[in-house]
């Protein structure tokens, strides 16, 4: 072998090695973040969930009693049922709202610039904190609130409406307010990739507006709908604060039970609940992903 060929081979090898090294370095920050903030906490939660405890301390060991206690409690079941009900209603409302808003922004606003402006306007409420956005509903919905006052003054009602605040209604209103944007963004994204000529092609084939919606727009927005649904459902299932404030303490969520456990130092019990919630949510998301192969949907877009 000639000297130059050896040199070329050596340079080639070096390049190969430095490539793999730089790839590793590039992957390192994300890996570090995931290990520190996902894997490690998860391991510690799972570990604590099998520890024993008494009134004063957590005792390392192995027991499944915490799980047995959580799973056999009627409270757990009723909390899950409450949250699934709230999540389902919130999901349905945000889906309809999010779909309509995204559809309007993508297909009805002619100027791209105005569409992007309106889209940013949708995010403006997020410049304030969640808590402020939630609390600002109180003066609106209360017994002496603006809505009741207005209805009483105009004579539409003679007794203030009680269901407006500290009820399922007010909780769902807050959820919808807080989470619709998480539905709008992915659907907006999916719809932006739809070629507007498809509407004309559909109309040319004799489809009505409704048929175009059902046979063309809906299937092509599916990936956005699924992503948005995962966001909204997991956000609602993981909530405890909105439920507490907006229901006036009359409702509790799965997570608020954990908060109660933690405040009475029942860490292993709370950890077991957390693991169960994680499993339930993972199964839910896996179920949704089975319905729609999101990875294929995202890759298939040219």
């Amino acid at each position, binding site marked *: 072998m000639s000297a130059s060929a050896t040199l070329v081979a050596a340079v080639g090898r070096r390049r190969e090695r430095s490539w793999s090294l730089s790839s590793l370095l590039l992957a390192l920050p994300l890996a570090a973040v995931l290990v520190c903030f996902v894997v490690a906490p998860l391991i510690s939660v799972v570990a604590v969930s099998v520890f024993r405890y008494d009134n004063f301390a957590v005792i390392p060991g192995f027991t499944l009693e915490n799980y047995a206690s959580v799973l056999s409690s009627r409270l757990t079941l009723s909390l899950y049922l409450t949250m699934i009900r709230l999540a389902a209603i919130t999901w349905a409302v945000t889906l309809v709202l999010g779909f309509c808003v995204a559809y309007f922004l993508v297909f009805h606003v002619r100027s791209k610039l105005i569409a992007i402006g309106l889209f940013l306007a949708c995010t403006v409420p997020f410049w304030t904190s969640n808590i402020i956005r939630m609390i600002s509903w109180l003066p609106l919905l209360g017994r002496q609130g603006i809505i009741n006052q207005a209805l009483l003054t105009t004579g539409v009602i003679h007794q203030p409406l009680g269901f407006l605040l500290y009820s399922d209604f007010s909780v769902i209103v807050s959820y919808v307010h807080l989470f619709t944007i998480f539905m709008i963004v992915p659907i907006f994204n999916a719809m932006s990739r739809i070629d507007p000529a498809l509407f004309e*092609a559909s109309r040319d084939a004799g489809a009505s507006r409704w048929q175009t919606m059902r046979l063309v727009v809906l299937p092509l927005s599916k990936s956005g709908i699924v992503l948005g649904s995962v966001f909204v459902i997991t956000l609602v299932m993981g909530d405890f604060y909105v439920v507490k404030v907006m229901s006036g303490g009359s409702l509790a969520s799965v997570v608020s039970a954990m908060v109660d456990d933690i405040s009475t130092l029942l860490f292993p019990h709370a950890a077991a609940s957390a693991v169960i919630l994680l499993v339930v949510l993972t199964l839910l998301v896996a179920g949704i992903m089975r319905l729609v192969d999101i990875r294929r949907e995202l890759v298939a877009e040219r």
Partner: protein
Amino acid sequence: MDTAAEITPSPARTVTGHAGAIELAGVAKRFPNGALAVNGINLRIAGGSYCCLLGPSGCGKTTTLRMIAGHEEPTAGEILIDGSNVVGLSPRARGTAMMFQSYALFPHLSVRDNVAFSLRVRGTPRAERYREADQVIEQVQLTEFAARLPGQLSGGQQQRVALARALITRPRVLLLDEPLSALDEFLRLQMRAELREMQRRLGITFVHVTHTQLEAVAVADQVVVMAHGEVRQSSSARGIYAEPRSAYVAQFMGGQNVLRGTVESVAAGIATLRGPGGEGYAVRLGADKALAGQTVEFAVRRDRLSLASSSTVNSITGRVRAIEYQGTFVKMTLTRSGAPDFVAYVDEGAYFRAPVAVGTMASFGWELDEAHLLVSE
């Protein structure tokens, strides 16, 4: 619900014996932003013919097509298909189908479902619509790809899907918006022949928008040259190419040299002209009139010139600026002082028997009948 009768082309027959005769009467389109895309055009397209709307970008040809298709409504005028006004009707009620420039195939549907789409929205049962779709897919030779998604097909195959999807509605009129512009040269020639063949077989009207002159004259029975929202000339392909009416059409089609001169005298239907450089021309007037002292334009076919020693009438002399070998002929460009370039298509054999070098002087002459007068606009 719709009946099966709607699927077959309308029984209305015109005098030509074919359905799908189109007539535009004073059709204009002004967009909401004030732009006038189409400025009151009148046009007749015979049923069962192949018509090309030809013109540069922004001349209103696509808008005209979309108005016939029912995807734009004219702001003035009437559009008649087989004698009845279709303005305001849906594409389906018009009996038209459109093939979109980007094909606009549904990316989430297989080839078969794309083609069967119009039957699906009509409520045809699945088995029946697939059977019908498969027949059309076979016509465009895509049977082995019927289960694929559009994204898995080549440009040419996607175009056949778009064609099949349009044809399954059995339209009286098929509207094609720059159908060949996304294809490479080889496929373009092949598809252009297939479109023509398809039109002949179906006997329906094809209206085809293009900005390529050779494409238009190759496929069309009728070529309509448009500019600035107006029809400049509408006639047979040969008529457009060989007998352009105006300097614009002559220059746009490219087969002619446009020359100008001042009328010196008219005798026996022949005008004697004097060019700006003092050269003399003789042009037959035909039905046109010309007065002495008037400046007129006339066209001379680039491929009917002979390399000649300069003579006193109907000849041009200039310096050879460029020579391009084109296979069957050689394109020679002459520059003349104070006048536009003059182009000659010289027979390949004739050229190579006596080649001319770039930079030398050359003269071309033509017979009286190869020049014709142009209408000034």
